[in-house]
């Protein structure tokens, strides 16, 4: 498990990352979301040691993270970076070797990865001759090649078509089932919702929400939908109930406490025929919108 503790980075007077604390559990995918400029990239660069920290610490399995441990991480920087004028296989092999692979292993691994991304026939092509989407695939291959112990990916899905997203997801799932902690940032909330076991929401350099989907849902404001015939208009006068919306037989309600909910249900049963009374399960994107709007 990778733990980020009170991580802070100042640029002059500006605090880009302000005492950020969260966990990236092993074998799980953690989504890192937040508006542009929220501090996601700065945090990831500090985790990778590319940017020094103003204060705070990062722990890997309980011990402070050092350069030696980082060298086995897989990293995909926000600004993509590879050699434009080099054949793609050659540069992957080079990066693999720098990550302590033998050149034979690196060549074998890189060829396999490129084949999985449908680039098996283009291994000798220069990076710049590939489309942007394909360059992105090579970049992903570069971060996965050395079978990293931790994956830190800054916007790995941007610019990928749905097929590439699927093969990327498949690769990431393989890594997480091998116990690797994965942190990735994204603006595509539906993807985060679909993939992530955890989510960390950053706003103006601060963590405003974090946890598993269920944690976040439990913390999210508890809402219920009531459908009762012939009409739900009477709910407006009930104590301890806030009515968010009423339309004919259906009302969206929020309760001050459990008592209020039980009271309302009892009243409802006397008022008509209750067809539905259930909690509303918000999607992560709804939670995200809610916490960032607050």
């Amino acid at each position: 498990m990778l733990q980020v503790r009170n991580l802070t980075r100042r640029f002059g007077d500006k605090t880009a990352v302000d005492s950020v604390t969260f966990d990236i559990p092993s074998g799980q995918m953690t989504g890192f979301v937040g508006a542009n400029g929220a501090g996601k990239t700065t945090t990831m660069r500090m985790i990778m040691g590319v940017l020094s920290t103003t204060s705070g610490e990062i722990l890997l399995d309980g011990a402070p993270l050092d350069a030696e441990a980082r060298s086995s991480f897989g990293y995909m920087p926000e600004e993509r970076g590879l050699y434009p004028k080099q054949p793609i296989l050659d540069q992957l092999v080079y990066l693999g070797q720098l990550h302590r692979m033998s050149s034979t292993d690196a060549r074998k691994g890189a060829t396999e990865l490129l084949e999985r991304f449908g680039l098996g026939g283009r291994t000798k092509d220069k990076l710049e001759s590939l489309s942007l989407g394909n360059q992105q695939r090579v970049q992903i291959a570069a971060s996965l090649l050395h079978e990293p112990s931790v994956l830190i990916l800054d916007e790995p899905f941007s610019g990928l078509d749905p097929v590439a997203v699927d093969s990327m997801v498949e690769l990431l799932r393989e890594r997480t089932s091998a116990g690797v902690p994965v942190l990735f940032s994204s603006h595509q909330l539906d993807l985060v919702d679909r993939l992530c076991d955890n989510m960390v929401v950053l706003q103006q350099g601060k963590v405003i929400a974090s946890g598993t989907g269920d944690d976040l849902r439990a913390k999210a404001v508890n809402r219920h939908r009531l459908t009762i015939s012939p009409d739900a208009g009477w709910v407006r006068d009930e104590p301890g109930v806030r009515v968010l919306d009423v339309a004919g037989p259906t009302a969206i309600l929020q309760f001050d406490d459990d008592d209020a909910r039980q009271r309302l249900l009892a009243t409802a049963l006397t008022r008509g025929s209750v067809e539905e009374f259930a909690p509303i399960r918000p999607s992560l994107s709804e939670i995200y919108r809610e916490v960032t709007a607050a």
Partner: protein
Amino acid sequence: MSTVSRPTPAWAIVTLREVMVKARDRSYLISTLVTLVLIVGVVVFNAYMSSKAEEYTVAVTGADAVSVVETAHETGQADGGNTSFEAVEASSREAAEELVRSGEADAALLVAYDGWTLTGNEELANGLQQGIAEALRAEVLEINAANAGTTPEALLEGSEFKTALLNGDAENQFVAQFTGFVFGFLFYMAAIVFGMAIATSVLEEKQNRVVEILATAIPIRQLLYGKVAGNTILAMIQLALYAGAALLALTFTGTADSVSTIIPASGWFLVFFLVGFLILASLWAMIGSMASRTEDLNNSSGPVLTVIIVALFAGLFAKGQLLVAASFVPVISTVAMPVRMLSGEIPLWETFLSLALALAAAYALLRFGEKIYRRAVMQGGGALTLRKAMKLEQ
């Protein structure tokens, strides 16, 4: 995972890549090949020109002139010489001149009451003029000596002299100057070509942000060492290639006499070249890391280019105390010290002192360059000045 052991240290992997990328670069290979062909060509051309047979036909009108031309021919053929003279007798002065005008003779050698005249059509070749002049002087000297009751040998006795220099020996002076020029020029070329290669390779990684990935894989210092080592190896290989080609061509064309003088000095030059290049390599890496676009390199490389040019000119033109001083200044000593060693005996401790100073400078600059490089190469945005780069946090 295949991370059991690293077969080679990180800097060596970087070095190998630098060399391999260059070795596969077509324009680099072509320019190296063209230079090689040029070097061999110049040597072969010189040898051909100096051994080429020269034949001159001289129109004459009398026996005296025939005798002069014959003497010129004998002298031209002596000591393995390849210059031949042939006399063509003409009936009159005008006929002789006509032969020259029509191109049947290269010149007419005519005698009148006021002395001898050598007449050419549009030009008189140097070899022709010299050969005839010497022969004429020898002939006339012999006649005059006989008239005076003596011999030319007696007349010239005691007039010969040897040359000597208080510092250095005369014979080496020319070789020293020529070799110094070659050394200086090779250093100048390599320092710029491979220096620029270091700067652009550093900048390429900075511009494309590959450096962020590299920095997470290996200590950034190793990356710098690898680049410096790689390009130094490339520069040395190219230098050895050029020098080897030149020496080989010299040997095959039989001009090998001077080779035995040049080889020991070349050995020292290689040592000084290596250290001098290491110093510049750190500077070039700094320049590359502070730039943000290729255009920036043109501006920021000015100071280093100045140092390189000073090194070249000091080696070529400095004399006396100035040359002695130059031979102890790192980088400039790369050319100046071997030139001093070529042109005369100098104590070995001076050579080693100069080398030690250069090594110390190389080490200091590598450490300083490392600091700047580590800070500047991660920095986005515009080009940095040295002052700004020093202030950067990592």
